[in-house]
């Protein structure tokens, strides 16, 4: 019994160390990933996040997927001559040593056909795949929209 728990401890310890070092050397970081709370029967949800490229080469976000959505797309909201439209990007480049922020009224992730209602407290996991081959699994937080967000102001 003692032996088993010791082995488990070792395994756990190494996976922990491994995670930390992977984190330290990660070329891409995703922060503040959140989904805006929406009506319960909404067919399309939206997510925002910040993508930071720590490397010295450009890296592209190539794919986003989740078991809880039929598909996920990169969009940008554009308002021109008072007409709102959304432009779809098949991939999005994050320039070296810089960040791309997804914000309300700007770049966003379109999450199609949620398999279950996303309510405050849900934590759907999204998988991000980048051009350098790296993959990041991340839980999204469901949050209420804050209308005082700076992006809506002049």
């Amino acid at each position, binding site marked *: 019994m003692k032996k088993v728990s010791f082995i488990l401890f070792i395994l756990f310890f190494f996976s922990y160390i491994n995670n930390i070092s992977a984190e330290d050397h990660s070329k891409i970081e995703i922060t503040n990933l959140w989904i*805006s709370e*929406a*009506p*319960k*029967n*909404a*067919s*399309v*949800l*939206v997510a925002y996040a910040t993508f930071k490229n720590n490397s010295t080469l450009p890296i*592209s976000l190539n794919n986003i997927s989740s078991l809880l959505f039929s*598909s996920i*797309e990169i*969009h940008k*909201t*554009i*308002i021109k001559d*008072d*007409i*709102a*439209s*959304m*432009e*779809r*990007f*098949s*991939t*999005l*480049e994050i320039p070296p040593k810089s960040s791309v922020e997804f914000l*309300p*009224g700007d770049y*966003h992730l*379109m*999450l*199609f056909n949620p398999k279950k209602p996303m309510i405050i407290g849900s934590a759907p996991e999204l998988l991000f795949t980048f051009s350098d081959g790296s993959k990041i699994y991340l839980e999204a937080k469901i949050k209420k*929209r804050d*209308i005082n967000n700076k992006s*809506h*102001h*002049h």
Partner: protein
Amino acid sequence: MIPSMVVLAILATSAGFYISLKQSQTKLEQNNIAEGLFWPNPKQLLEFNTTDNNGELFGLKQIEEKWSFIFFGYTNCPDICPITMSVMADTYKRIKNEYKNVQVIFVTVDPERDDTEKLNSYVSFFDSQFIGLNGSPQIKNSLTKQIGVAFYHDDKKGNYLVDHSASIFVIDPKMRLVSKLSPPHNSEEIIKKFKKIKRFIDEKS
């Protein structure tokens, strides 16, 4: 990153063609009384009978003697539409006690997907008093035709998108389109402009 022109070109060709419902709204006169005020010739709305989020008939009679804020959008638009609706919800909360005859109306430009039930849960998510209308852009004298703008895919396959007005339109108690509030929207500005417009219109009558 794909240049936007390429995306637009691909979109335009693959979609076949768009139907433009852009109507007279653009040429309306504006002057200095308040930014976005249509004066001296505000457009008098014609009967547009449609159904609301409870399945009830909604037409000119339902906007008479009221100040209406109208926004065009669709429930599958998760970014700009909820932003505007949230701003309107905040605006409404802050003025509804002072101005009892104010109403907020969301007109869907995607009535095929936005049925009554969807429309109802959508508008009430923002405020239980909000009204959702079936825009039926194709119908003669629909609100979309009279004051809004919508461009959509003719084939309507898959997760199609609809381009639509980003402005909030203000209808006075005499059922005239008196103002267009342009984005970006924020509640403080909307309230300020509304008070200005209301004072001006009240003085005129």
